[in-house]
Structure formats: structure tokens, C-alpha cells
């Protein structure tokens, strides 16, 4: 049949032309183009496309809004701001940045699996020249700089700057002051005191810890427990593969055993395997569980929604806690307004904007100590500063391997349900970690 042959023939032709390697792969990065950065770019008639995905009412959203207005005032350029979905950026970043639809500057996640991957594939601009011109590195504490620099293989900690963080995040303990007062309990300062507080609540029939094993919270608690028995080198090895990680070492074994112990004693409910992070937060807000170990990203929500008296403290006796820089400003290699992008980034790093972020309940990287007057807000920022001063930001347990987030949660669910013993769960984590790491760093 002629029609059939025609169709088949054109299909083959089409296939042939399209299978030729699409040369739209990452353009060589502009590391060599040490062109002069214009620190006072004229923006009249130009538009800067900015993408972010933080809630507009969050501290970052508020600060960045102000930064955009300031930017337009200073350079005369218009801003095309688009609020994106985290999911969209996460899934399609490599496709979008590799096309004409790429923005001029955008918020992007930190870590090997995200910024590391994109930078190693040549999709992000090398920011070293801009950093030198604007002096941003003097504003960033060393542990914050780790997540801003990536090697050629896309591993953080060394190499050129590919992203600029302008806020931070960390994990701390939220507690229900009213309930603590009711049972005459003090804020614990050591892990033993912490355990005693847990036991005291349990004795009164209250499950002390709000947790979720379906999403990140329980994994972060496990990691924190391990951190209390580990040192900086341990973290560096785990996160940047400088030495193989051993899930049966003292730190991990302690962490998993303690967690199992707490589940058995009822400090953590067995039903956390069916709870999402939102559910855990909801439980804390409703006053059901008096202690919630989770991130600074809950701060704004709790401030506006919680009815009882509450406070925070760093995990007792810990020198390191999960935490890192916040998301990074990255400049796609396909950006057409790089000088304007750098200018915008600089504005977000300026004292006015950083102070505004602090006042709005965020954690800036370079604000004045006197900026925040609200005691809770001050506590939030002070705790972060304590961590950065001691180089105590340990990043997050799921960072080393891209699918480790799901794997870690799966192993913890088995641990809580009793389906796997402590040993078996740790072995499973080892297998998953090793498999995932093999894929990274070429």
C-alpha cells in the first residue's frame, strides 16, 4: 500500500534526523570569560527575569519583593518576576536552563544532586568574577560557603562559586512552653536531661515527640542523634565522599538504637509511619505533642498560627545540627542580563534587605545583630549564628545520594514498624547509600 510506505518512509527519515546528537547540550561555561563586571549596569529599557518559589508571605518573599523594587530604582531596569512551583523547578531545571526560556537569575536548591549536577553540566555561570567584584565571600561564613561552591564533578565544598546564598536554615527543637510549665519541666541542656523530659511526658500519658516517618523529620532526628557522636570530618566524609561512610559505625549505631529505643518506650508514636511532615507540624500546633524537632522553615507558620506559648532550643549537647545555607541565587549560563543579575544579587545581600529579612522572621546570612528586636526572632537568628560560628552546619542526611531521601525514609519506616532490626535497617541504608554514591562524581 503506497500510503503505508510513505508513512513508514517519512517516519524513518524523521527518526534519522532527530537521532543525530542534538548539539544543544550545555555550552562551555564562561569560567574563562573573566570579563569585567559592570557594578553599575544601566538597565533602562531592559528586563530582568527572576524566578523564585518561596511563598510570597515568607520572610524571603518579603525581602526579595523589596529587593526587586530597590533594583528597579537603582538600575532603571524592569523586573519580570515569576513565582514558580518548587516541583517544576526541581524536575525541569535541566531542560529549562538548556533552552531560551531560561530566566536571568533564579532561586535554586543547594547540594550535589541539584546545583552540583547543573554546574557540572555547564548550565550555571561561574560566579567567581562576580564574587570578587562584589566581595560577597566576606559576608558568608565558611560553612555557608560550602554549599555555594562546586567542583567540576559537581561535589560541594570546593571549586568555583556557582550560587550565592542569602539566607540560612537549620533544624532545632520547638517546644510547647505551656506544657513544659504545666509539668514543671526545664529546657534540657544535655541529652540525658532531654531523655528525662521525654520520660516525664510519657509518664503523664503524653507522647512527647511529634514526628513523621513518611517525610523528612524522622530522618533528620536520626541524623542529629548521630551528629552528637561524630565530628566535622565525619560529616565531610559523609557529604563529600572523601572517605567511605560506614553505617555500622558508632555514630549511626547509636542513633538508630536510640531511635528504636524511643519508639519502644513510646516517646515516638508507632503511627508516625503514616504521617507526613505537615501532620507532625499540625500535631504540634494542636498541642498534642509538646516537642517538635524540625526546621526553621516552620518558624513563620508557628508564629502566626500557634496559640500557646512556645520556644526553641538547639538540640541539647550537640555541637552540630542539620542545617545549611538557604537556597542559592544562580545565574543560568543562558542568561542574557548577567550584569543586572549580579546587581540584583548584591542588593539582596545588602544590609537593608538582610535586616528586613531578619525583621520578617527569616535567617539572613549577613544582617546586623541589632536588626532584630523581637525576642523570638532574635533567638532564631542567634541560634543559627552559634552554629555557623562553630562550623556546626551538618547539611542533611539525604543529600549524599539523589534517591537517598526515599531510601532513608523506607528504612526508618521498617525500623519503626519493627519489620527490620536496627542492624538490618542500617545495612539497608548502607546498600542504598553506596549505590547512590556510585552514580555521582563520575
Amino acid at each position, binding site marked *: *500500500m503506497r500510503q503505508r510506505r510513505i508513512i513508514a518512509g517519512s517516519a524513518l527519515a524523521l527518526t534519522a534526523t*532527530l537521532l543525530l546528537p*542534538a548539539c*544543544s547540550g550545555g555550552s562551555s561555561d564562561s569560567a574563562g570569560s573573566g570579563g569585567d563586571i559592570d557594578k553599575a549596569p544601566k538597565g533602562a529599557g531592559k528586563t530582568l527575569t527572576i524566578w523564585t*518559589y*518561596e*511563598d*510570597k*508571605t515568607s520572610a524571603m518573599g518579603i525581602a526579595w519583593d523589596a529587593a526587586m523594587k530597590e533594583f528597579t530604582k537603582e538600575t532603571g531596569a524592569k523586573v519580570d518576576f*515569576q*513565582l*514558580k*512551583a*518548587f*516541583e*517544576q523547578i*526541581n*524536575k*525541569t531545571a535541566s*531542560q*529549562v536552563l538548556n*533552552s*531560551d*526560556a531560561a530566566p536571568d537569575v533564579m532561586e535554586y*536548591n543547594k547540594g550535589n544532586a541539584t546545583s552540583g549536577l547543573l554546574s557540572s553540566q555547564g548550565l550555571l555561570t561561574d560566579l567567581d568574577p562576580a564574587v570578587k567584584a562584589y566581595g560577597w565571600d566576606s559576608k558568608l561564613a565558611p560553612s555557608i560557603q560550602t554549599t555555594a561552591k562546586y567542583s567540576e564533578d559537581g561535589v560541594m565544598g570546593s571549586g568555583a562559586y556557582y550560587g550565592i546564598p542569602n539566607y540560612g536554615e537549620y533544624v532545632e527543637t520547638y517546644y510547647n512552653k505551656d506544657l513544659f510549665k504545666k509539668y514543671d519541666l526545664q529546657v534540657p541542656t544535655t541529652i540525658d536531661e532531654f531523655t528525662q523530659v521525654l520520660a516525664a511526658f510519657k509518664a503523664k500519658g503524653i507522647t512527647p515527640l511529634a514526628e513523621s516517618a513518611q517525610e*523528612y523529620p524522622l530522618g533528620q532526628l536520626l541524623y542529629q542523634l548521630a551528629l552528637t557522636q561524630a565530628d566535622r570530618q565525619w560529616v565531610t566524609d559523609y557529604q563529600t565522599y572523601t572517605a567511605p561512610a560506614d553505617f555500622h559505625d558508632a555514630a549511626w549505631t547509636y542513633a538508630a538504637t536510640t531511635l528504636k529505643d524511643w519508639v519502644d518506650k513510646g516517646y515516638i508514636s508507632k503511627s508516625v509511619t503514616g504521617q507526613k*511532615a*505537615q501532620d507532625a507540624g*499540625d500535631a504540634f*500546633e*494542636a498541642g498534642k505533642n509538646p516537642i517538635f524537632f524540625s*526546621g526553621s*522553615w*516552620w518558624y513563620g*507558620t508557628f508564629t*502566626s*498560627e*500557634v*496559640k500557646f506559648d512556645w520556644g526553641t532550643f538547639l538540640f541539647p549537647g550537640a555541637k552540630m545540627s542539620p542545617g545549611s545555607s538557604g537556597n542559592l541565587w544562580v545565574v543560568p549560563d543562558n542568561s542574557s542580563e548577567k550584569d543586572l543579575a549580579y546587581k540584583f544579587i548584591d542588593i539582596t545581600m545588602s544590609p537593608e534587605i538582610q535586616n528586613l529579612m531578619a525583621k520578617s522572621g527569616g535567617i539572613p546570612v549577613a544582617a546586623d545583630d541589632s536588626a532584630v528586636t523581637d525576642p523570638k526572632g532574635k533567638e532564631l537568628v542567634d541560634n543559627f549564628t552559634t552554629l555557623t560560628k562553630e562550623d556546626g552546619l551538618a547539611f542533611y542526611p539525604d543529600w549524599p545520594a539523589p534517591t537517598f531521601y526515599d531510601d532513608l525514609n523506607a528504612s526508618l519506616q521498617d525500623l519503626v514498624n519493627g519489620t527490620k532490626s536496627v542492624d538490618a535497617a542500617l545495612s539497608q541504608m548502607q546498600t542504598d547509600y553506596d549505590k547512590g554514591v556510585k552514580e555521582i562524581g563520575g
Partner: protein
Amino acid sequence: MSLDQSERVTSPAPERPVPQNKRRRRTGLEWTALALTVLVAVVMIAPLLLVVLNAVKSPEDFANHGPLGLPSGIYLDGIRTFWNAVDFPRKLWNSIVISGLVAVFGVLFSVLNAYALGIGRIRGRMWVLVAFLLATIVPQEALLYPLYIMFKHIGLYDTIWSVIVVFIVIHGAFGTYLLASVFGAFPKELLEAAALDGANRRQILWRVVVPVVRPTLAVLAVFFFIWTWNEFLIPLSFLVSADHQTVQVGIATLQGERIMNVTTISASALLGIAPTLLFFLVFQRTLTRGLTAGAIK
């Protein structure tokens, strides 16, 4: 009782009223049947009432009484902020255009293909049908990279046409299969009678075949609209700029990496469902053409 399909299946004439047999008193069994179907319907929609409840709660309300509590007042600020932040009307419009075009052209796609397969009985039609079914079998993520490169080459990346074309094929494949199966059982007498009257292939298609299967076409149109409306992965990948995006992508902005805005999500979900619901209810009437006693011409 064995019935020869092709003799008994009729062509419903339009606008003939339903001859409802109400002469006999409804038996107890029949009342039970009614009760059963109503009960099932209640179970079906009960969870949706939860969405409605939570859509008008303030975040504090939700935090203090949980998702099951009754709202203590109507709170619309969240949805108002969201509406403006993502330019929701624009997203609504995009979704309507995309879903509508896919519905119309998807049905056309299905009709043409099914005509050749089901009535034309072309050689190798089973394999052609299987080839079309591939469109529903291949996982969508497998299509993304090749299509991305193709669309970038021809300049369709970040336009609604990329999405429209993709879903015409994917949903149209289902339509092809359904219609081809239905056409395969089409009463031959109608076709032969028309051919004897001197009608050519095109006329037979539009004047004889299509009117008979109109209820099925209506079902297809409704399905295509709703399925396209709810699609997420492909619009997420190919619609980059904010003013090309659809409702589902817009709603996704409420889901941050770790925090989500539950009450606003519920409210926006309702806003997102409303058009599809309307579409379905409007088309319901074409689906319910009612029983007719047509005769074989």
C-alpha cells in the same frame, strides 16, 4: 437467549422521549436498588465535602481544629492572595483553551482513525490498533526528553501547542481504541443501505455512522477535557513561562519544598475542579439522550 447483535442494535433517533414503564408498581427490589446506588453515591462524594470544608478555613482554624473540624468562619484571604500571585484567571484560560482544543480535535482524531479500523477493516488493523495503543502504554516520562528536544528544534517549546498536540495523540489513542471497537460492531445493514443509496465513504461517515455513536463521542469529549485538565507532568515540563501555564501547575506553586499551604490548596483545588465539573454537568445532557425506540431503517 442468544441475540445476534447486528440485528438488534438500533440507531437512537434524536429527541424521542423515554418510554418509562411506570405502569407496574415499583417492587421492593427496585427500591433497594435505588437505595444502594444512592448510598454508593454518598460514599463517593463524602470525602469531597472535606475539601469544601477546608477551603474556607483560616490557617489558624485548621491548625487548631484539624481538617475534620467545622470552619468557624469563612476565610477567603488565602485564595485571594493566591489568585493574584499566580494570575489564576490566566491559568484558567490556558487550561480551558488547551482542554477544549484537545477535546475537539482528539475526538476528530479518534473518529478518523476508528473509521478506517473499525468500518474500513483495513488489512493489519489489529497491529495498527496496537500501534495506537502504544500512546497510552508508554510511560509519559519516557516521552519527555525526546519531545523536549524535538519541540525546542521546531520552536514549540514553552507554547501551549506542544501540550495540545501531545494530548491529542495520547488521549486520541484511547478514543481510537474505543471507537474502533464500537465501530467494529456497527450494524452492517445501515452501512450497506447507505452505500446502495450511492453515498461515498465520507458521506457514510458523517451522515450515518457519527449520528449513531454520538453518545460515545460525547463521552470521549468529556473524558478528554477532564483528563487534559488534570494532566500535570507534561504541562509542567513544556509550559515554562507563567502566562502559558495551566491550573494544575499554578496550584503546584502552593506546595513548597517542605511547607504547604493546606487551606489555600483546598480552596484552589475547588477553583480548579469547578470548570471541569461545569463541563461535565453541561455535557451530561448529551450523555443522557435517554432510551429511544428507534427502528432499523
